[in-house]
């Protein structure tokens, strides 16, 4: 309850969720100069790894023109004016100066997979290749004590400078014993707090790390929570979605490399450039929604005609994410594009409250007692039936009582 009170207080003192896409020439000129100075400074730093971005692009058959196209698209995604394009391109090249430590907690490694298993390395993925990934439990060769040593060294060497990426939720039940790591059996909770202490910023990637995700779904046996519930007094950026879109990860890192600051965030600490808009409003099937043309069942004539998936439980109307714009795998496709509804994976509690693949009116909700699961309409009809029965009994009793009175002694 006190959490809720705090949240409400914060709400009334914070700015509106408005996404300001044009902050005026003076603002951008100042930002431009600042970014330029920062990039120049970074250029003088020693790269943390020997990867060269230009070589990598060439190896993967991506020419300069394609790269510049990507740079202007990314500039637009970050809601910066076109004059920032050369800076964004420079920042991408300088990404190997941004030390990153990646923690893997209670999750399926889906966000790492999303990066690695793209159909072919696209520029977003290459940019993520080149970041100076100092520590990544799943990807690194080192293991055991060696891995622990590497983590300690990285944290010491880049103290206060590294970005801490966290993937997966933090189990809090049973003193966090549901998830431990390393020879000393450090709990995920302690591990995260230790690594977050000297980080420049903590970036929670994927739904588990942001809001607890699937591990936190009812009945949440491990007491899973997101990063923002345990890490305090650190800049936190949430990049939810299951998996998080690599484009948004790159966006956040680029923004950090470019400006040295975290991007503008919404009330759930999600960058506004990515989560400021509703899926529904940029959906290619929106016209069918307005027209009342819905897929009624899988494979019907509506499905063949790309009708709206609202009745199949699409949660686009209540989900904020940019996947209807940037899509996945370099714009190849996205859930609604392949003909299945959105499950609201970038919203809190998505597994319980969004992903049931039915319209909300048919969703199962819990009774206040926590027990019986019924749909909203079943609850409603139940209440109505109870009222009806009550009225029926009252009416019948009143009628009988009235008759008795009339046939009985003449009163008054």
């Amino acid at each position, binding site marked *: 309850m006190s959490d*809720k009170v705090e*949240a*409400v207080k914060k*709400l*009334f003192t914070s700015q*509106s*969720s*408005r*996404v*300001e896409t044009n902050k005026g020439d003076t603002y951008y000129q100042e930002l431009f100069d600042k970014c330029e100075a920062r990039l120049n400074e970074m250029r003088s730093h020693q790269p943390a790894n020997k990867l060269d971005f230009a070589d990598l692009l060439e190896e993967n058959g991506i020419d300069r023109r394609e790269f510049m196209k990507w740079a202007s698209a990314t500039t637009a995604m970050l809601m910066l004016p076109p004059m920032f394009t050369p800076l964004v391109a420079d920042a991408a090249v300088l990404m190997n100066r941004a030390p990153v430590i990646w923690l893997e907690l209670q999750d399926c490694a889906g966000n790492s997979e999303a990066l690695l298993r793209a159909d072919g390395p696209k520029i977003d993925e290459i940019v993520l290749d080149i970041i100076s990934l100092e520590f990544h439990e799943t990807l690194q060769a080192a293991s055991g004590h060696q891995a622990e040593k590497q983590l300690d060294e990285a944290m010491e060497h880049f103290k206060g400078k590294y970005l801490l990426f966290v993937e997966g939720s933090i189990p809090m039940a049973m003193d966090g014993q549901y998830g431990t790591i390393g020879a000393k059996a450090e709990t995920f909770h302690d591990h995260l707090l230790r690594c977050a202490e000297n980080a420049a910023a903590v970036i929670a990637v994927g739904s588990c790390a942001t809001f607890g995700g699937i591990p936190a779904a009812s009945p949440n046996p491990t007491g899973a929570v997101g990063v923002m519930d345990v890490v305090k007094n650190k800049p936190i950026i949430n990049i939810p979605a299951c998996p998080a879109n690599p484009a948004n990860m790159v966006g956040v890192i680029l923004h950090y490399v470019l400006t040295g600051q975290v991007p503008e965030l919404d*009330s759930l600490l999600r960058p506004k450039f990515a989560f*400021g*808009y*509703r899926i*529904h*409003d940029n959906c290619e099937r929106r016209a069918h*929604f*307005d*027209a*009342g*043309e*819905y897929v*009624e069942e899988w494979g019907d*004539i509506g499905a063949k005609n790309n009708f709206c998936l*609202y*009745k199949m439980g699409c*949660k686009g*109307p*209540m*989900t*904020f994410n940019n996947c209807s714009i940037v899509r996945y795998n370099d714009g190849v496709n996205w859930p609604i594009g392949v003909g299945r509804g959105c499950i*609201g994976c970038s*919203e*809190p*509690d998505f597994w319980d*409250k*969004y992903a049931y693949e039915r*319209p*909300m*009116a*048919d*969703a199962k*909700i819990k009774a206040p007692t926590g027990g019986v699961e019924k749909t*909203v*309409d079943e*609850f*409603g*009809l139940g*209440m*109505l039936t109870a*009222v*009806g029965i009550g*009225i029926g009994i*009252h*009416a019948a*009793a*009143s009628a009988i*009582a*009235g008759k008795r*009175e009339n046939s009985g002694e003449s009163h008054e």
Partner: protein
Amino acid sequence: MKQGYTQVKRMTPIMRVMHWVNAICLVGAIATGLYIGHPYYQTLIADGAVDKYVMAWNRYGHFIIAIIFDVTSIVIAYLYFFSRFEKPYKKVIPNTKNIKEFKNVFINLISLNRKNELNSEHADSFNTVYFTIFHLLLIWMLLTGLQLYVHGLGSGTSSIGAWWPWMLHAVTDWTLYVTGGSKMDVRISHHLTMWLIICWVVFHIYYQVWRTIFWKEGDIGIVISGTKFAKDKSPKSE
């Protein structure tokens, strides 16, 4: 007029207009709202393109109804405190007189009219409390509804300016936290509150009909003519 009865004024014309506007709006809001929650009829594929705007019209209708509700709610809220006819708030204050009246009316209801110790000439405390509950439910619907509406204004601006979504956020964002934290909770609450309101209406209609039948004072006529007949209870008339 039947002997022993006096005609008493119970509702002003504006109150009656408001009642029927609300009643019609309620039916409209439920019909369109159920469609928005789960589209229950289909458009015909053969329909002309200009006719195919079914969800959008439903949402439009739902929203226009919401605005009418807004206006009547403001007027009712004003009359609640400043009416020159009857100020309903005076009947909700839990003072001895009101509690006694509330009890009497309630006992009358559950004793199936065998106990009748109330003064039926003016609005009673029980009905006023019931009326107040309705308007609280309605205010909750307005707040949650506007919260759902502002989700569509993600750009932070609207055809009437940026103040509108800003205001909606400022006024309704707290409903997110109160209902459970996610946008879906607000939706579920909005939908469930509809059922509460339907239950409210069902009992309301029943109770007014019941009063009419058992009190034999023509209570149902209040909302049409504004008056009812009250039995003259002064001992002289007997």
